[in-house]
């Protein structure tokens, strides 16, 4: 039962509700935009005293580009590794009944359920013993924790959503489990795999806590760079970085709104 708005009063109420929602949701994001152009803005001036492109020009220097490249490289490696594990594991979890299935699913939920910071602090200590702290390898490993959680759960959901009849037909014609997986299930799952890869990629690109702890002091990605800028009261630099960090997520929201299923979105909200 959904009622369309008919009267002028109802339409006005809708417009007002939209204006209020837009202010509260988009307002803070727009203020990032204003700050990124504010060359001078001191309290209590309600508006920047001087606007300019000085801080956007800083984007072209190594200060900004190095963390961007590092983050992209880490995100690509994390995405590939996570999918390499998650595609076969997700298929097994979706299709096969085996001992320990529930335990595996539970293990892949724990990082989602527990506060991550104390665990990552502990992981950093362990990493020091193996020379992994402050290295890209260490950062990849810590991103893989969250990346695998997303990848395994989305891939399990993707394979569970495929009609089992197609696989049964292949088995009946004498194809092995492996051959059926490679020639039937895998091609059908490609859209889901792409969605899963995008989620993991974005998660890695935006990951902050693990990178701050494990990567320090040598590996800097954009979220860490943004934090450093903000601690140094360079609010404009942090705002420029924040805007850049929002671009991939905004593209995903706009392009994949129809493709992404609600259950993937739920995972996303917890990044």
């Amino acid at each position, binding site marked *: *039962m*959904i*009622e*369309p*708005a008919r009267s002028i009063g109802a339409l006005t109420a*809708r417009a007002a*509700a*939209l204006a209020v*929602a*837009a202010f509260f*949701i*988009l*307002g*803070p*994001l727009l*203020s*990032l935009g204003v*700050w990124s152009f504010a060359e001078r803005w001191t*309290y209590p001036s*309600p508006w920047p005293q001087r606007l300019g492109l000085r801080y956007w020009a800083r984007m072209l220097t190594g200060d900004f580009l190095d963390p961007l490249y590092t983050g992209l490289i880490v995100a690509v490696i994390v995405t590939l590794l996570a999918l390499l594990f998650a595609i076969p594991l997700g298929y097994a979890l979706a299709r096969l009944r085996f001992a320990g299935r529930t335990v595996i699913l539970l*293990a892949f*939920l*724990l*990082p*989602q*359920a*527990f*506060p*991550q*910071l*104390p*665990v990552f*602090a*502990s*992981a950093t*200590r362990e990493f020091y013993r193996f020379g992994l702290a402050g290295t890209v390898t260490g950062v990849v*490993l810590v991103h893989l*924790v969250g990346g*695998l959680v997303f990848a395994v759960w989305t891939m399990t959901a993707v394979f569970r959503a495929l009609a089992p009849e197609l696989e049964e037909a292949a088995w009946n014609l004498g194809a092995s489990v492996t051959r059926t997986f490679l020639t039937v299930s895998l091609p059908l799952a490609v859209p889901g795999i792409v969605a899963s890869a995008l989620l993991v990629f974005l998660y890695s690109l*935006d990951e902050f806590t693990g990178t701050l*702890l494990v990567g320090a002091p040598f590996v800097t990605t954009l*979220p860490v760079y*943004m*934090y450093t800028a903000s601690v140094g009261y360079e*609010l404009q630099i*942090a*705002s420029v970085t*924040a805007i850049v*960090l*929002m671009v991939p*997520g905004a593209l*995903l*929201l706009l392009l994949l709104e129809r493709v992404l299923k*609600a259950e993937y*979105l*739920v995972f*996303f*909200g*917890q*990044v």
Partner: protein
Amino acid sequence: MLAAVFLWPLGASVAASFAREGQWTLANYATVARLYARDVAYTIGVAGAGTALTFALAIPVCGWLRLRAFGPIEFLLKVPLFVPFVVVGHALRVFWSPYVPSFSSSWAGIATALAWKHLGLAALLLLGAFRGTDDAYLEAARQLGASTGRLTRDILVPMAAPALAVTGILIFSSMLASFSIPLMMGRGGGPQMLMIDVYYRYGQHGDFATASALGVVAYLLAMGAALVYVRRLTR
């Protein structure tokens, strides 16, 4: 992989919280009680206020959207899902700073920023639950003259009570464990969020044992979320 990078460090931090200089002891918890009791209460308060604020906004809006679909607002509610935590913290800091400079690092500022970020998740879960409610009940009440507000309060909320409880637990636990938002909002004087304490205790004081004890307190407080996940899985 997961065992090496998550389960082992999790176990190691629990073990470390009971040890000091090679001896098994509760001394770390005594330190937590002595120095951080106020911060634990503060964290619970901020997470509680943030959860309450999220619901205060999400319930009426989702009730309204359930009864009178309106795409643009539904789209806006999804936006926070796609904004990274660090960016949320910074955006809400600079949003207030030119006008009310001290707001962002106050408890109300942190609770507001946490509510902003969790609004997307709350809306997604609540709309799903509200849309699962049978139209017949709503139709009957509407015939008897019930308004959108009454329909939400007297039909949608009671019928979606289990989903509301689960959403509340997940959001509360996530807020308790929040680190990047309070960190980006800046440190005011006075009490701090628990994760900030863990970070400084470990990073600046190098006191891993006390940091771990603080971590275990956080694990226990967030146990509700773990139980929700376990129940979902075993059902």
